[in-house]
């Protein structure tokens, strides 16, 4: 039976833990994300195509895609303008989310600089100094605290309007920066581009759909080479540089005899202190007094990736597991920060003993207990939250507990620094392997789960097809969790790769699928691509690279997709953004961008077909660099098994 087929719950996920918990959810009478998706069917066609506009009160308006009904909104906007404005606002929302996450980390660095926090310190002084030099700060004879203060001050300027160019964007190859200058898309200030995007998409401002989309590119670049990159670099500086280590994934990481705490969200500020608090001897004694043998932490989504990469904390699951992890009945407390946390989790928790604790004042959840997080006194708040979990252990109902599977081993911790170290200090061995053709190229598989696609099928099938064909895969976010659960991220998984990639993985002791972190850490991929391009003296778009987001759902993913393409990397999406209502924009994004940015988007839900699109692209780029290459059309395109969704 093909992985594409299935009856009942098997249509929804490839994972045994998901299927077991869906059955338990049905028995327990708990509604899940899949139930709600079914109730929403059919979903609004105007909104799916992007031709509905609710920007102003002359509307809401919609354009009939079949040509009979209205072709313009009340203001006169046609399908092109409406689709462009909607897409641009998605980019702005996504870029704002990442960048505001970066801002919170930056404010923490500022607190460290001012000596106003009892919780955080500089964990990576060397990285701090490297960043300070990059920002033109004199580092000689300065303490870490002084440098933290000065770097924080400089980076705050990145959010403002005094810069003509974001300093971190200078990491991109010269040729790439020239494209950004020529097209007017070089990012200036993070908040500035986002605010200007909202201004431009107000009624009656920017009505040239190409011009709107160019600024959407600039906005996304202010994320990829600004907000997200600041989040990654400063998280490394404050919380430690990820290094390779083994850990575990899936619902089997929950422990039947311990207090289970789920860390859900994106921002590591909070999850770091929970990790510290869970080791507190008093709390461990309290756990024992309540009959537990210990305190077990497990991650979910990107905050899980942050503590997995740095601390090896195991991962309970990805986006679509957030309700099902509660359905195990084994979770004492889920602590959330922000982003991708479904409002549904508090409803699910009501059916079990699980407590939900929200922590950021910008992200409150009806039905959750709110404990306002204060980075000046983080550790005390961390202990307070862990104590709540421990005290909730006696409320656990043994008959309701079901931890359905054994955990799967995986390797994590591949920061760029760690990858370079694994390669012996320089990217040259990787470049040599690509030149020789042992590795055909590299692909970043990133993004979310989306219940419209069988959970993890898109990620894992695409990954398998690529590594089989000697393409190195790097993963972040929920895609990384999918591949980890599927057993593709152990050094032993090298056996699943083609002969060239397999030999290299075995020589270095690494998996063929490398975990680079959370979704803000997609910047590790673009920065690594820039470093490779700089080493070869070419633009990123000349390299045999591609990106894929097989199961994306969020606005953040749209921002990522746009900055990845604008950085010169061909990207295949598994679900479609709401653009099909404008054939002009579909053509621009899938063909026209090639001449402007040297890269395009493609939409292909079927992972086996997406793999062929990517392999053809990689061979084309190899030929362009004068490397040994297959004829792209000699790679046969299989029949679609998964339809456009």
């Amino acid at each position, binding site marked *: 039976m093909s992985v594409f087929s299935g009856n009942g719950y098997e249509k929804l996920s490839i994972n045994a833990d998901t299927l077991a918990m869906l059955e338990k959810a049905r028995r327990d009478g708990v509604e899940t994300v899949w139930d709600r998706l079914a109730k929403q069917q*059919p979903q*609004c*066609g105007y909104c799916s195509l992007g031709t509905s506009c609710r920007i102003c009160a002359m509307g809401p308006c919609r354009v*009939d895609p*079949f*040509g*009979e009904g209205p072709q313009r909104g009340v203001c006169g906007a046609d399908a092109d303008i409406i689709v462009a404005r909607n897409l641009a606002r998605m980019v702005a929302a996504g870029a704002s989310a990442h960048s505001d996450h970066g801002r919170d980390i930056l404010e923490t660095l500022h607190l460290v600089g001012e000596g106003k926090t009892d919780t955080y310190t500089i964990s990576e002084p060397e990285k701090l100094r490297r960043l300070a030099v990059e920002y033109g700060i004199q580092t000689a004879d300065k303490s870490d605290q002084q440098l933290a203060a000065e770097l924080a001050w400089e980076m705050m300027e990145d959010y403002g309007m005094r810069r003509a160019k974001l300093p971190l964007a200078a990491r991109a190859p010269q040729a790439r920066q020239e494209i950004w200058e020529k097209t007017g898309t070089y990012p200036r200030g993070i908040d500035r581009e986002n605010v200007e995007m909202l201004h431009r998409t107000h009624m009656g401002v920017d009505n040239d759909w190409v011009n709107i989309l160019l600024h959407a590119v600039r906005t996304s670049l202010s994320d990829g080479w600004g907000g997200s990159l600041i989040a990654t670099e400063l998280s490394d500086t404050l919380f430690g540089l990820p290094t390779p280590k083994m850990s575990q994934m899936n619902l089997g990481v929950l422990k039947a005899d311990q207090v289970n705490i789920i860390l859900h969200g994106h921002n590591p500020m909070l999850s770091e202190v929970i990790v510290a608090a869970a080791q507190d001897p008093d709390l461990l004694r309290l756990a024992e007094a309540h009959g537990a043998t210990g305190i077990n932490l497990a991650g979910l989504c990107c905050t899980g990736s942050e503590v997995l990469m740095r601390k090896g904390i195991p991962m309970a699951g990805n986006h679509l597991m957030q309700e099902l992890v509660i359905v195990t009945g084994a979770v004492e407390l889920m602590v959330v920060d922000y982003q991708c946390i479904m409002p549904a989790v508090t409803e699910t928790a009501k059916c079990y003993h699980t407590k939900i604790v929200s922590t950021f004042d910008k992200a409150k959840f009806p039905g959750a207990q709110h404990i306002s997080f204060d980075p000046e006194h983080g550790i005390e708040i961390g202990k307070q939250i862990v104590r709540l979990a421990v005290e909730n252990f006696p409320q656990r109902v043994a008959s309701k507990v079901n931890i359905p599977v054994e955990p799967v081993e995986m390797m994590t911790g591949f920061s760029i620094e760690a990858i370079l170290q694994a390669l012996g200090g320089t990217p040259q061995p990787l470049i040599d392997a690509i030149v020789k053709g042992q590795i055909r190229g590299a692909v970043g598989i990133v993004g979310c789960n989306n219940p419209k696609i069988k959970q993890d099928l898109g990620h894992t099938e695409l990954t398998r097809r690529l590594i089989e064909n000697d393409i190195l895969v790097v993963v972040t976010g929920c895609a990384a969790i999918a591949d980890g659960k599927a057993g593709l991220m152990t050094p032993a998984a090298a056996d699943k790769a083609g002969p060239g990639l397999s030999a290299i993985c075995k020589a270095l002791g690494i998996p063929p699928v490398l975990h680079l972190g959370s979704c803000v850490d997609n910047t590790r991929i673009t920065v690594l691509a820039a470093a490779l391009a700089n080493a070869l003296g070419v633009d990123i778009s000349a390299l045999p690279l591609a990106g894929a987001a097989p199961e994306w759902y969020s606005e953040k993913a749209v921002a990522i997709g746009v900055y990845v393409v604008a950085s010169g990397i061909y990207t295949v999406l598994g679900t479609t953004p709401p653009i*099909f*209502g404008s054939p002009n924009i579909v053509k621009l994004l899938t063909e026209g961008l090639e001449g402007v940015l040297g890269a395009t988007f493609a939409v292909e839900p079927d992972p086996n077909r997406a793999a062929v699109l990517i392999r053809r692209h990689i061979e084309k780029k190899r030929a362009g660099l004068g490397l040994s290459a297959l004829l792209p059309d000699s790679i046969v395109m299989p029949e679609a098994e998964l339809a456009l969704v």
Partner: protein
Amino acid sequence: MKTVFVHPERCIGCKQCEMACAVAHSQTKNLFLSVFETPAPKSRIHAEPGLLLNTAFPNKCRHCDPAPCMAVCPTAAIRRAADHPEIVMIEPRKCIACGMCAMVCPFDVITYYAAAGAPGKPAIAIKCDHCIERQRQGGSPACVEACKAGALQFGEINELVKAARTRYSEAVSVAVTQVSSELSALPANVVAWRQLGAEITHLNADGKKGA
């Protein structure tokens, strides 16, 4: 007799029935692919605005019996389906696009467009077929499935009429006696929204104001 029953007071004018109808009658049956089809698929249901702002009526073939369109069709292109005699169908290949059926239609819901079922013809008569293909597979009409506001219901007409009648008698009694609005069949926010629409309509209709 099964039919698509319309509750006009529930229609919020979203036009999703039109979209779903066009996709259901496309060649690919897929929203994203159907927008690129030639000829473009057309909706057979038409959510047209009422007299007052914020009101609308989803108008479609009522499958009359006897059907005036069937009586006037000179080529016998309009007939009843053998397995679903309650459904009036148009045979695309027999249609000569004379326009007679549209002229006699009491609801003005027959339109003329090129259709995939009649290759080579610039236009043929197009109207609701009650999604007979979906019904044959145990499904319901696409417009009904798409309506999230409960304006369109599919079922036995007498049962649907009775349900509507009972609700109306309650609502009408409220209107007549002007007792508390909580007894109304509509949520308070929808009542307020309709009232606002009525006020705006009356304001604009008053030729004296602002003159």
